């Protein structure tokens, strides 16, 4: 006898995501789930945003398959960071976020959750964040929104990084926007954070995040 149950999967993750959301809102934290390919410039972006967002405290929960390179580099800059090594798992899930959040132990802050570099799996896992930010870099190509529909369609805002390379790699901004607009109305911020040069475009993203932070209900 067939039984109809219509039971949503990943409920356990959803439940923990809600708990994380309550933890963050209880501490007046804006949690930003930052996703993107390996090498898309996620860590560099956080580092630049932290400077721009001062005096608001910034913390980072770093997710990587292995190593603590990113967390160490951010700590050197004075950004409270905790490193989660997923040991092969291709995304972060709600379970590990709470540990990372407790390690940095912040209040009244913007906390970036730097997800594992991957354009597929992280899209599926709600971590209890307030904002989903996607870093897409110019060298990856202008066709990515057409190819990675779930990731691009779930993002609240898209940051196009390494824009100084547009000409060198023949990036067609119009085609990128066409693909993105078919699946999302998310704002796009263009940045260039080349080492040794003045960062361009960071202020606009910082303003966007600051407005979200200021709109949080007081804990």
């Amino acid at each position: 006898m067939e039984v109809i149950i219509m039971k949503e999967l990943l409920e356990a993750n959803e439940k923990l995501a809600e708990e994380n959301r309550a933890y963050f809102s209880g501490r007046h934290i804006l949690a930003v789930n930052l996703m993107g390919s390996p090498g898309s410039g996620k860590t560099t972006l956080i580092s630049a945003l932290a400077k721009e967002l001062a005096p608001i405290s910034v913390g980072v929960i770093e997710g990587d398959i292995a190593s603590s390179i990113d967390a160490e580099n951010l700590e050197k800059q004075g950004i409270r960071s905790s490193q989660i090594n997923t040991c092969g798992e291709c995304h972060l899930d709600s379970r590990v976020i709470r540990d990372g959040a407790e390690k940095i132990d912040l209040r009244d802050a913007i906390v970036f959750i730097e997800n594992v570099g991957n354009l597929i799996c992280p899209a599926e896992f709600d971590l209890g964040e307030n904002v989903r930010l996607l870093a897409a870099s110019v060298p990856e190509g202008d066709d990515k929104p057409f190819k990675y529909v779930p990731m691009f369609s779930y993002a609240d805002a898209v940051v196009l990084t390494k824009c100084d390379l547009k000409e060198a790699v023949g990036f067609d901004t119009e085609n990128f926007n066409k693909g993105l607009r078919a699946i999302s109305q998310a704002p796009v911020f263009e940045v260039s954070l080349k080492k040794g040069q003045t960062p361009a475009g960071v202020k606009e993203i910082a303003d966007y995040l600051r407005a979200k932070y200021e709109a949080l209900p007081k804990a």
Partner: protein
Amino acid sequence: MHELPIVLDIIRVMKDEAKKHGFHEITKITLVIGELSSVVDESVQMYFEVAAKDTPCANAKLVFEHRPAMLKCTVCGTEFPHEKSFDCPACGGSSVLIKGTGTEFYIKSFDGN
């Protein structure tokens, strides 16, 4: 790769349901998978064969039902499933994703003894 936690979730749900309905074994599980849910049938099947050993689902057959993401043409309003292109099959106009379509991911039904 991320199908493992999903498979473990399926088995956990099925254990509870088997108990609830007095089944000692589950013979069939029907899953609904939306095109945008980033879940691959073959990966689910592969993990399931390993993870279901020694559970009531050990011999269960997995049935996958797919749901497409739906697009709506911004020019003529035609709604069509996303297959290869974002261009409208009726007029060639560009389309937008209908929010919420193609993200389904749930156990629809199961059968057992």
